[in-house]
């Protein structure tokens, strides 16, 4: 049994120690906002926060999550009021939307560490992949949310 704190709620799950955190979130806890993309930590669709840091949850063993604070896109704000969520809507960032929860979590981690990122900072931190090519709108929305 592994105990972890997900979106400020303590949860216990009975899984193998090397089960990826992604499957704990989606299968055990029903938090399907976090997506499965490549499964090898490349695309970033599965990005969540662990103790405030962005991690690719498909490559994060559940045993490493024990006792730690996990935040998924569902926990970013209670009412979609996070500055990034607002900027995402104002800028109409998504097209198909599949990668966007991971994009939002990666962007939130970046702004938490660097409140006023430059274009170069965004390029370095946002390695998530978007098949629809929404990168320019993502950059614009991050700048819009910066410092708010």
């Amino acid at each position: 049994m592994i105990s972890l704190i997900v979106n400020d709620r303590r949860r216990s799950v009975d899984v193998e120690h090397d089960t990826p955190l992604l499957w704990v979130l989606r299968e055990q806890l029903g938090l399907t906002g976090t997506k499965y993309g490549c499964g090898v930590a490349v695309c970033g669709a599965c990005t969540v926060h662990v103790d405030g840091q962005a991690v690719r949850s498909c490559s994060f063993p559940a045993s490493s999550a024990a006792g730690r604070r996990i935040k998924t896109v569902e926990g970013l704000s209670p009412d979609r009021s996070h500055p990034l969520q607002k900027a995402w809507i104002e800028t109409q960032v998504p097209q198909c939307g599949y990668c966007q929860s991971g994009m939002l979590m990666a962007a939130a981690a970046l702004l938490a560490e660097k409140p006023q990122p430059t274009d170069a900072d965004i390029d370095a931190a946002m390695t998530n992949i978007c098949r629809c090519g929404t990168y320019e709108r993502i950059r614009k929305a991050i700048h819009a949310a910066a410092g708010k």
Partner: protein
Amino acid sequence: MRLQASRALAAAALTCLLALSGAAVLSAQSSSRFAGADVQTTQPLPQRPSVSSAQLFEQIYIVLKHPRCMNCHTGEAFPRQGDDAHRHTMNVTRGPADHGAPGLHCSTCHQSVNQAASGVPGAPDWSLAPMRMTWQGLNAGELCRALRNPAKGAMTPEQMLPHFATGLIRWAWAPGMNSHGRARSIPPISYAQFVDVTRRWIASGARCPE
């Protein structure tokens, strides 16, 4: 194929050198094993031929130059990957503290253990060596002197053994499978041999090749 062949030759040559220079205990164990488990060997241990301190470093050097070490001891603003030392995919960068870019730390993907499900390697404190500790393009003598230079490594020979005992260094001998399910290569001598030769290099004065 050529690379594999030259590695195999290097490993074979090194094995011979180790056998000649420092495997007296192993030699005695082997003798008793062949003679039968309950028979004590009474033969005197063979004389250990003298190997200079600088020669011992050559054996350390072949480990340090292995891709498992070199890929993170780069002199560039990014890590490298694989036995071909290609640039780390996904525009991964060194970042201000050698732990990746803000928002994309090494720990975004690299956890404290290898992750079998994805093939992403992991060990405690996964990070790049600081830029001043780059080993790129250095021959054995240059790398040895870099290790002994506080401005480049800030580590005395005595501090090396505890460093080599950390999980990150030991990972090089247990690097797991890559994302294609193939085992990553490991340095050409075992971890025990690496520690042994390092200990003997330090004890013999930690001298560097020319």
